[in-house]
Each structure stands twice: as structure tokens, then as C-alpha cells.
């Protein structure tokens, strides 16, 4: 577990250094994810330890959101002031995204000779 955590932290560190060093507008951990993905492609996949550790970390992903989510207490007045645009935006945008993604994929699948999914 320690070796896998060390790997994850090293990739995150590399991501932070490159993002800040080159002034890229991308969060460091995202670049770290990209680097790890490339490393996995070169290596032909994760070792057992990295597989287990990342699975454990991602299984409890929702716990990691709690401290940031609790930060809502700093913004209660903003949510109270702007609840209508927030509610409508979340509702319409989420359903529009679901529908657009699905429709575009269905169209693209129909117009390419079927290699994957059902017709």
C-alpha cells in the first residue's frame, strides 16, 4: 500500500510541478492522472498493489468530498439568494447533457459499420 501511495503522490507532484512550471491552466492532479495513464500504457497495466490501493481509494471517494461539501456553510446566503437560477440550471443542464450525449452516440453508432454495441 505504501509503495502504491508513494507512486500516486509522485505522479501528483510531477503534475503540480509541470502545471505550475509551465503555467498550464490545468489542475496538477489531473496532469498527474494523465502521466500515470501514459505510464500504465507503457508498462502494460498496473501492478497488483497499485490496483488494490487505487480501488480502495476510489471506493471511498465520496468520503473525501465531505470536508469540501461542508464548506457550503460559508455560502448559505449565496445559495439562499440565488436558489432559482441554481436549481433550474442544474436540472435542465443535467438532463440536456444526458440526452445530447446519448443522441450523438446513437447517431454515430448508426452511421459507422457496427463494431461495438447493438444497432
Amino acid at each position, binding site marked *: 500500500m505504501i509503495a502504491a501511495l508513494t507512486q500516486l503522490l509522485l505522479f501528483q507532484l510531477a503534475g503540480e510541478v509541470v502545471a505550475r512550471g509551465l503555467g498550464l491552466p490545468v489542475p496538477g492532479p489531473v496532469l498527474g492522472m494523465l502521466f500515470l495513464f501514459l505510464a500504465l500504457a507503457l508498462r502494460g497495466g498496473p501492478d497488483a498493489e497499485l490496483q488494490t490501493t487505487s480501488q480502495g481509494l476510489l471506493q471511498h471517494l465520496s468520503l473525501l468530498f465531505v470536508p469540501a461539501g461542508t464548506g457550503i456553510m460559508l455560502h448559505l446566503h449565496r445559495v439562499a439568494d440565488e436558489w432559482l*437560477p441554481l436549481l433550474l440550471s442544474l436540472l435542465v443542464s443535467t438532463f440536456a447533457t444526458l440526452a445530447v450525449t446519448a443522441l450523438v452516440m446513437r447517431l454515430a453508432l448508426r452511421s459507422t459499420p457496427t463494431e461495438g454495441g447493438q444497432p
Partner: protein
Amino acid sequence: MTPHLNEIWVYLAASPLLGLTITLVAYQGAFWLYRRSGMNPLANPVLISVTALVALLSLTGTPYQTYFDGAQFVHFLLGPATVALAVPLYTQFRRVRAMLLPVLLGLVAGSLTAVLSAIAIGKLFGASTPTLLSLAPKSVTTPIAMGVAERIGGIPSLTAVLVIATGILGAVGARYLFDAMKLRDPAIRGFAIGVASHGIGTARAFQVSEQAGAFAALAMGLNGLLTALMLPALMPLLSRWLG
């Protein structure tokens, strides 16, 4: 309160132990409720923990910053967890090569729809600019969304809450929408849920079918990456639009 208890409280209130412990206890309790409800998406464990913690902190008059001094140790793990997303991304990526083009087209269309429609509707109904910028990355998994919000001038903690709300909406509603659209392919259903409502939607898709779950996990990772690259690059255009 006896002077003795008072001394203990003064000590605990100033140490990071309390903030860290109540975060874990609140989450354990919320997760127990979630399981008891048969994993009902409305009983989302993050929503329940946050509500309980906000109530507790408000009742005891504890400032958020004092709480966060302890909770930051949990918060810090979001970084390594984001990096760890590369592992499922890599595992799913090989399965999906066969339908690469439809997947990429769906991804780009969905990702743009998520960002632009959220901003457009928010602006139409009078949301302020910091709120709009906090809304923009709402379809992406929280660690990425918060990083993007910080970069483009939104409020990361507000984004976290909006992301969670988006996840719950998609997880609850997707099924009815797709049934109405007569859309049955589990690969398409799963991928669309992953693009629109990230990890919470993905967890839901896995409960429906293995294939839908795999495509949702892939979509969550790809949309996180695309939004993190695209949204900061779009900012010069967006800030002209937002005025």
C-alpha cells in the same frame, strides 16, 4: 459545565483531532443510513454527512476554518484519488477501442452541453458571475471540478456542493429519460450518465449493469480530463460573454 470539562473542550476545539473524527463518524453514520435505504440515491451519504456536520458546527458555534484544520487530512486525499482515476480509465480504455469514434463524439458534445447550458440558464435567471463560474464544471468529478473552479475564478466549496447535487439528479432521473427516449443500449446509457453526473451516476450505473458501469467510469474519467483542459482554455471567450 464544570471547569474540568470546560478545559477538555478548550483543548479539543483547538486540536485537529475533533474535526477529523467527526468527519469520519458523520460519514460512517450516513453510509449506514444509505445501505439501510437499499442504496436509494436520495439517501446520498455525502448529502447526509454534510447536513449533519453543518448542523453540528452551527449549533456549537464552531467556525468552518477550525473544523477544516482537522478535516483537511481527508480533503488532501482528493489529489491522490484523482491520480488514481488513471487506473480504471486504463482498464476500461482497452474495452472501448472498438467504438472509439462514437465515444469521442458523444464525449465532446456532452461535455460542451454540460458547461454551456449550465452557464446559459444560470445567466438567463440572473445568477452572479462567481456563481456561474462555480456552476460551469458541475458535471465533473469533485476533485477535478474544484481544481477547475479555482483556476477559472469560481468558488471551489460551492462547486463541490453543485457537483454533488448534479450527481444525485442524474442518478435519480437518467432511467426515466432514457426509457422515454426508447434508448436501451447499456453502453450508451452508461456513457451518458458518466458524462453528465460523474461518480455518483457511475455508482448507480454499476448497480444496473456491468457494461453500463464500465462505460460510465470511462466517461467520468474522460470528461474530467476534457473539462479540465477545455474550460480554462475557453475562459477568454466566456469572460467576454459573462461581461
